[in-house]
């Protein structure tokens, strides 16, 4: 009966409406409880948080930390590894890598920074086994992975036929087969064309052979998502990513799901929250910064954030994560092969590209974002504009799209910019003048509060992906994941950016399931995390019908059908989430 008390801290728990109230947090057997018995309290581990900031453990809803493309990034970048090393200790492994750290280092670095839950945002079905193997070796963190469907042959075929139920049956079977958590859609209909050295550039462009448009894929997958009732909404990486002027296609893509009804049909026990912990969105826009470019070419390039934000402010079915660019080296890795080729044509850097059979594609390139580069400087400003101009923080999540815009260990730097106008102005002075000339950031006075930071880094990331039944808050029944920052909110000085950043980089305590895992940046315990995935169900007869199609086209795969599934033994502490249980399963119209 292990118990932990986090005493006397200033608690920021937005899903419970707690804004800096001095409170004790009680944890028993890994879960938050209302109180402890006298005996339990006597034996409890006491963490004195007097004068400190207490938040739920960080939740990263969009990061690239496991799988084939991540490992390709490691393999092609030895120079990324030799200067960023971590020595082994009695309880931790050694590790290396700055933009693409080794799996162990990733786990330790996230935990040392106060994050306890991280989701891999793009798992191609054929690489699911590899992804789970890497997650299995990642210590401490609770994880899951979104599966890439936007250019999947079966999906494109069923949606072209207008058969959303059969597409849903396929998605349900695939998620159970490969232990996936959500649906990711990358450059819908475009990556398939990349197999023929082409792309699509408009929402109504028809792609080769499947003759389907991005609009049909986005609408279809969003319908599949809500038909099954998945915990998270469709996670969308839009078309024309990284092209000047793409903010308009991004806005139009978000419009497609307007008016849809979010349905979470999971069979889970919800921890207590004061606010509604169910997601409200039908589309979760990935790395919005890369999708809100203005201008028409690189000459008149500028921020297009204003136009996109105007739409988001008026819409209630959208959540975005920003994909900030905090400068320095990065490794772009995405299922959007053609976007990586475009980056190669611009930068001449080394790159890799991969076609993933009937499912998707992928590309990796090494990048450097320089303050002196006009384009990097605008991208930096855009990443911050997105979070500062969207009025309702419950529509935004802070990420760097690690390691595309920047590295997750730069989150403390991004938080500092969001909280301090002075920090932004100081950085802008070191940047190419386009940073403020071609964005509206210079005129933005907003400084986010600790409460809002807690929304952007925990509460809303958890709610958006449906993990708020246990993560992202400290209500009774929630996981005992807590971060204690050595930061006194009553003496907060946002005009000392360096000191502020240090506080977020090295929390005093990271607590996972009631156990202290990191203390002032040092890893002190290495528990094994959980692996979440969904088990959605649809009509049995329909599934049989669908599997006939799958087996028929399996002749185009390079592996046998029986070797396709990823058994649960690849997952540490698997947590299957039942969705749309058979009894209530949809019956075919």
């Amino acid at each position, binding site marked *: 009966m292990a118990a932990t008390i986090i005493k006397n801290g200033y608690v920021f728990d937005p899903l419970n409406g707690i804004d800096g109230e001095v409170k004790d947090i009680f944890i028993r057997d890994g879960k938050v409880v209302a109180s402890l018995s006298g005996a339990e309290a006597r034996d409890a581990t006491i963490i004195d948080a007097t004068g400190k900031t207490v938040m739920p453990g960080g939740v990263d809803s969009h990061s690239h930390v496991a799988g084939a493309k991540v490992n390709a990034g490691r393999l*092609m*970048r*030895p*120079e*990324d590894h030799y200067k960023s090393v971590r020595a*082994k200790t009695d309880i931790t492994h050694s590790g290396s890598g700055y933009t693409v750290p080794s799996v162990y280092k990733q786990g330790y670095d996230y935990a040392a920074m106060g994050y306890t839950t991280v989701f891999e945002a793009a798992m191609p079905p054929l690489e699911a086994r590899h992804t789970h193997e890497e997650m299995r070796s990642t210590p401490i963190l609770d994880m899951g992975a979104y599966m890439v469907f936007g250019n999947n042959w079966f999906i494109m075929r069923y949606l072209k036929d207008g058969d959303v139920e059969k597409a849903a049956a396929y998605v349900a079977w695939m998620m159970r087969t490969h232990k996936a958590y959500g649906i990711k859609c990358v450059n819908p209909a475009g990556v398939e064309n990349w197999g023929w050295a082409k792309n699509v550039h408009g929402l109504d462009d028809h792609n080769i052979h499947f003759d389907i448009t991005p609009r049909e894929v986005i609408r279809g997958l969003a319908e599949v998502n809500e038909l099954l009732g998945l915990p998270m909404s469709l996670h969308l990486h839009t078309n024309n990513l990284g092209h000047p002027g793409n903010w308009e296609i991004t806005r139009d893509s978000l419009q497609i799901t307007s008016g849809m009804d979010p349905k979470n049909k999971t069979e889970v026990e919800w921890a207590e929250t004061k606010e509604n912990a169910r997601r409200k969105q039908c589309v979760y826009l990935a790395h919005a910064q890369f999708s809100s470019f203005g201008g028409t070419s690189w000459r008149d390039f500028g921020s297009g954030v204003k136009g996109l934000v105007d739409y988001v402010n008026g819409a209630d079915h959208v959540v975005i994560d920003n994909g900030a660019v905090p400068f320095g080296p990065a490794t772009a890795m995405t299922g959007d092969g053609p976007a990586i080729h475009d980056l190669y044509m611009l930068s001449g850097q080394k790159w890799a590209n991969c076609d993933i059979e009937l499912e998707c594609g992928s590309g990796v390139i090494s990048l450097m974002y320089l303050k002196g580069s006009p384009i990097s400087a605008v991208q930096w400003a855009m990443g911050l504009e997105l979070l500062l101009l969207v009025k309702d923080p419950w529509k935004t999540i802070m990420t760097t799209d690690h390691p595309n815009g920047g590295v997750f260990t730069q989150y403390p730097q991004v938080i500092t910019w969001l909280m301090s106008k002075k920090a932004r102005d100081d950085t802008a002075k070191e940047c190419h003048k386009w940073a403020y000339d071609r964005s509206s950031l210079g005129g933005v006075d907003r400084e986010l509060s600790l409460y809002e930071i807690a929304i952007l880094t925990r509460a809303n990331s958890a709610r958006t992906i449906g993990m708020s039944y246990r993560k992202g808050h400290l209500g009774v029944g929630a996981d005992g994941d807590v971060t204690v920052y050595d930061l006194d909110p009553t003496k907060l000085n946002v005009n000392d950016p360096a000191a502020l950043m240090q506080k977020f980089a090295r929390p005093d305590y990271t607590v996972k399931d009631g156990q202290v895992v990191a203390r002032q940046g040092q890893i002190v315990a290495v528990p094994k995390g959980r692996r979440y995935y969904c088990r959605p169900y649809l009509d049995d007869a329909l599934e049989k019908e669908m599997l006939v199609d799958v087996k028929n086209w399996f002749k185009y795969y390079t592996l046998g059908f029986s070797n396709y599934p990823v058994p649960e033994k690849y997952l540490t502490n698997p947590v299957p989430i039942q969705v749309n249980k058979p009894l209530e399963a949809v019956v075919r119209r």
Partner: protein
Amino acid sequence: MAEIVLVPKGKIGINIEAEVIRPDLMAGKPKAEIEGMKVWQGPVELPLKEFFDIDVRGAATAEETTIIIDGDVSRVKHIGHGMKAGKIEIRGSAGMHVGAESAGGVIVVEKDAGAWAGMEMKGGLLQIKGNAGDHVGSAYRGSWRGMTGGQIMIEGNARSQLGAGLAGGQIVVSGNVENFCGMRQGGGLIVVKGDAIRGVGAEMAGGNIAVYGTIRQFAPGFVENGREENPKVGDFPLEGMFVKYTGDYAISKNPKGLLYSREV
């Protein structure tokens, strides 16, 4: 002036990683502190005194401090790695990475140096009186940006990939080099007074290379661009009649690399 004398205690088994041997880290420190500086040997960290007898003569600033290594340290890696000032005299052979990423000061190696000598060097002088290994003044594996400043002088021969990714500074080799000298060079100067085997300047986009001897297999992407007698490359005078080539057209459409090859 101050001198810190390190005498190797005997044969070193597993190579040690001694980036602490730097005048700017040791200057002005008492003997006990220098003896206690930690070096990695495989998976364990040990104090410097495990491997060296140390004598400290005087205390001065980094600029005024000379570290004398009196013996063979060919199994000691990273000597002077990242140093910014002062002098290191190695009265024997040095291991890998000597003077890598150094930004100032002087390192003199009386005998041979291992691979990666002066890797990604930014400034200062590295003088090797014997032979050098592979990757002298080059970029680390995977990187395309090597030495950016300073000077490396090798009195003997060097092996392959000398000055790979060179972006600035100067490397002068009195003897021969092997393969891919100046590969992916973007700036700076390489002078080879002896012969080269193949791939000189492969994929270069800028900077200068001069080879006095023969190049056994010339890279195909170079275009002849006139002859010059006693040309001056930057402030470096070359002696003799040279054929000048521009390249490497195999990679870049408009390369600025110049390769001078002396007429026999």
